[in-house]
């Protein structure tokens, strides 16, 4: 393997290292265990949701409803605990079950009616957000039992629990993609749906599964987020789908389907985390952060595209 191939394969990790070195030099508060754990905790919800997005992208689809689902999970779980006096565990499970069902509905419409995923999930995104507003009337819901905050704010040793949840979900994602037979189906369907069908893969079922899993992971991310913020708000999940998409694309997941790895998505997520943390330490404004985030995405994907073109032509 020459250096160019290495760069193509691990380029995303190189970008991550460069960012880390840059911020370490630029700010003395960046490179220490405490701050790194803060970064990990900040990105944990994103990491969980990105696994679902990664699966969906592998199929050549997209799930724009992830952010709205996180909002709905926040509002529903909060409403159940505060207004319904339901136990935190039950409320969480009910909310996750709800987002999982929404994921299934996405998959059902996409696979059975064969509507384009971007339209289907755009519609459910809008509907789900509306439902969240209706439930809470636009007002924040708070005052949860103390035990609920453990998921989002607790630690095991020095490791924050959200980070542990993220590691578990991402490992699960990697196991599904690398070891299970249905994970292989994701690549086959995303790479060539017709050939996959003619190889005996039930393409419709694969789509159900993938969108359902995306809903499930969005639900788990939503509960962790709610527990961390301690307040159910209508804006809580706003923009999550695009951050998840950014992380996946940074990690080299093909938006045309058929190609992508969880390990690289981890790098994509860490890049986003390091960027926003580092820029806060450097007192960059939120708007500057947006500009930089977009530029990094454009640069990273542009770099990847150029490498690919070179490879196919050279």
């Amino acid at each position, binding site marked *: 393997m*020459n250096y160019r191939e290495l760069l193509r394969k691990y380029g995303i990790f190189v970008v991550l290292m460069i960012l880390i070195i840059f911020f370490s030099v630029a700010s003395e508060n960046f490179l220490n265990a405490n701050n790194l754990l803060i970064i990990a905790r900040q990105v944990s919800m994103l990491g969980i949701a990105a696994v679902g997005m990664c699966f969906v992208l592998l199929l050549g689809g997209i799930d724009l409803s992830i952010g709205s689902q996180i909002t709905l999970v926040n509002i529903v779980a909060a409403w159940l605990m505060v207004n319904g006096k339901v136990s935190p565990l039950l409320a969480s499970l009910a909310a996750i079950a709800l987002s999982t069902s929404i994921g299934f509905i996405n998959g059902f419409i996409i696979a059975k009616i064969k509507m384009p995923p971007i339209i289907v999930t755009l519609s459910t995104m809008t509907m789900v957000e509306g439902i969240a507003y209706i439930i809470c009337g636009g007002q924040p819901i708070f005052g949860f039992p103390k035990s609920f905050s453990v998921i989002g704010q607790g630690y095991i040793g020095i490791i924050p629990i959200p980070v542990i949840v993220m590691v578990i979900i991402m490992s699960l994602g990697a196991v599904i993609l690398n*070891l*299970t*037979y*249905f994970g*292989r*189906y994701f*690549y*086959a369907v995303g*790479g*060539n749906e*017709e*050939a*996959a*069908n*003619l*190889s*005996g*893969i*039930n393409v419709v079922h694969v789509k159900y599964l993938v969108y359902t899993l995306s809903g499930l992971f969005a639900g788990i991310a939503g509960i962790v987020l709610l527990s961390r913020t301690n307040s159910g708000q209508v804006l809580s999940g706003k923009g999550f789908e695009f951050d998840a998409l950014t992380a996946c694309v940074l990690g080299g997941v093909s938006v045309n389907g*058929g*190609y992508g790895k969880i390990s690289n998505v981890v790098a994509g997520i860490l890049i986003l985390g390091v960027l926003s943390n580092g820029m806060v330490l450097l007192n960059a404004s939120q708007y500057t952060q947006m500009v930089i985030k977009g530029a990094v995405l454009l640069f990273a994907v542009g770099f990847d595209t150029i490498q690919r073109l070179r490879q196919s*032509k*050279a």
Partner: protein
Amino acid sequence: MFLQLNNITKVYPGVVALNNVTLHVNKGEVHALVGENGAGKSTLIKTCTGAVIPDSGSIVIDGKEFKSMTPKLAEQHGIAVIYQEFNLVGELSVAENIFLGRAIRKGILVDKKAMVNESRKIFRQLGVDIDPNKLVSSLTVGYQQLVEIAKAISQNAKILIMDEPSAPLTKAEAEHMYQLVYRLKEQGVTIIYISHRMEEIFKLSDRVTVMRDGNIVKTMNTSDTNVDELVKLMVGRELKETYPAREACVSDETILEVRNLSGNGLKDISFKVRKGEVLGFGGLIGSGRTELAELLFGVKPKTGGQIIFKGREIAPRTPQEAIDLGIALVPEDRKRQGALLEIDIKGNISMPILRRISRLFIVNRKREVKIANEYKESIRIKTPSLTQKVKNLSGGNQQKVIIAKWLASNADLIILDEPTRGIDVGAKYEIYTLINSLVKNGKTVLMISSEMPELIGMSDRIIVLSEGRITGSLNKGEFDQEVIMSMASISKGKE
């Protein structure tokens, strides 16, 4: 010399695709380019069009020298290519495709009427009957090819490169195309003609160049050579007879019986197949052969009739159900329907049986490798590694991978739809040998083929379809090219 390729070298990591290749083409000649898949023909062509930049060497067109081409330059100098894969936009009309990128305009608006009229003129010149208003996606592969040729001609191509143009065509369509090649030659167009079909090389070309392993082996006048010599030069060894002999494997047991089957454009199809038989299906493109395969394999539903397989009536609704019953399909379009190009060899072979070799959802990867290796050895898939992506294999090896996956799934009935399309001579022979060993091992083969010699050479029995109906059935002693052709052209439909 009208077109000169001088000392072209192109090296890919691990492969020398072109090794100091020099090819001179005279003005107005039909120059055939032959060689096995992977010999470097396509790469050479791509250097003429700018799709591939050579590492060294030069290209001279009509006295002007270039270090490398760009697609734009190639077009300006009258080079047009008809690739194996078409460059047509399915959702645009035939006329719009022909004038793609250079639409006839009236002010700022596109003058559709003029484009349709121009297209009609071109088609009249070609002697083909295509409605320019039709969407390209509604045409069969054969007609799409003709649109592609029409497009090149409308661009006043001076050098027309045809990459296996007859591969997807029926005999009648191919005949049209040959006439067209003669006509273009008369008009002074220079043609580089790539083909695996020997008869058309001798029919059409003035000179022929043989390539092997990235080198030019020899260029000679076509009239000074013969099929045997060409094949020998191409493969670098002597080939045995074109169709390997097969001991009789047909048993008395009927494995598949189809009664009055209809649906998917088919009407009242009835036939029986015995275990160990190779049943050939002849007919024109669109005659219903592929459609029949789709019904048997559960891709499309039947609307009437019965399918009795291994003594039981079946009605597969999905390919998965058909596979579980022991039916397999090697589809017509290898790249679009058959192979999972971005997935490695072992992943392709194991795809239909992944679930069977999994426990608690986890794939038993040791078994997967073992199975893949077994078939790689037994049917001789040429590859350094099972983790090679299938897109990096030659056509013949891709086809072997697809057949291997069905052997791994233990299918009893294997439907082969155009099993050797676009595959070179040496690999064809291996596919035929493979078919023989299938029936020898008790499998049954339904073989759809548009190549008449192959159909006659390989089948135990031939059924001919036309317009969705069976129009004839021949036993081994009765095979005759002309009889089959006339059966294939029987028309019962109302116009």
